[in-house]
C-alpha cells in the first residue's frame, strides 16, 4: 500500500514568489494535516482538514492557506515567500479527525528553500 505521498520532494523559490505543495493521503484516510519543520526543531502544526473542512489552524500568517479536495488530497499554498519559510513541509494523514490510537502517518516531506 502506498503511504502518504508529497510532491515535489525539493523546491527552490525566490523571495516574494508563491508556492503550492501537494499531498496524497493513505487510501481511506480522510484527515490531512500540514506541518512546518525547521532544521533542528520539531514540526509545527499549520493546518488540519477533515472531510474537506478546516478543523484546525496553527499560529501561521495568512500567507499560508490550504484546501482539501473531494478525493481527500490536499494542497498547501504559501504566498509572498520569505527567507524564513525555508523548511521541510510535512503532510500527515489519519483515518479519523483525531489521529488517536494509530497516530498520524507522515509523508517524507517537501524541502522548500527560499533564496
Amino acid at each position: 500500500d502506498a503511504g502518504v505521498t508529497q510532491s515535489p520532494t525539493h523546491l527552490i523559490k525566490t523571495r516574494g514568489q508563491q508556492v503550492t505543495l501537494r499531498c496524497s493521503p493513505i487510501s481511506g484516510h480522510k484527515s490531512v494535516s500540514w506541518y512546518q519543520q525547521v532544521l533542528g526543531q520539531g514540526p509545527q502544526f499549520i493546518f488540519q482538514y477533515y472531510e474537506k473542512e478546516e478543523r484546525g489552524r496553527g499560529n501561521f500568517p495568512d500567507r499560508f492557506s490550504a484546501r482539501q479536495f473531494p478525493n481527500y488530497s490536499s494542497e498547501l499554498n504559501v504566498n509572498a515567500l520569505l527567507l524564513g519559510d525555508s523548511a521541510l513541509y510535512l503532510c500527515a494523514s489519519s483515518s479519523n479527525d483525531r489521529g488517536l490510537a494509530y497516530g498520524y502517518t507522515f509523508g517524507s516531506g517537501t524541502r522548500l528553500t527560499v533564496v
Partner: protein
Amino acid sequence: EDQVTQSPEALRLQEGESSSLNCSYTVSGLRGLFWYRQDPGKGPEFLFTLYSAGEEKEKERLKATLTKKESFLHITAPKPEDSATYLCAVQLYNFNKFYFGSGTKLNVKP
C-alpha cells in the same frame, strides 16, 4: 502557555547501554501523548500513543511511560539502528492543537 520540552537534546550511547529520554509537558487538557521516530530526510514514524497517567506501551527495545507531567521513552540494550531523532507530541482536548517537542537526537555507537 502550552509547552512541550524534551531532554536531553542529544544522547550518545554505546551499543547495549540502556537509557531514557524525557518529554515534559505543561498543557491544559491532554488528550494523548505521542512518540515518533524521525530519520534524517524523512517524515516522523509513529511509535506509541499514551492516554492516561500510569499507562505503558512497549515495542521491541522501546518502552514508553506516562505520568501527569512527563513521559519517558526507555531504550533497552540499544543497537546502532536505533539511532534517530525521537519526537514527542501532545494533542489537546481542543484536538486541533497538536504540539511537538524539539526532539532528542540519539546516536548509538557499535
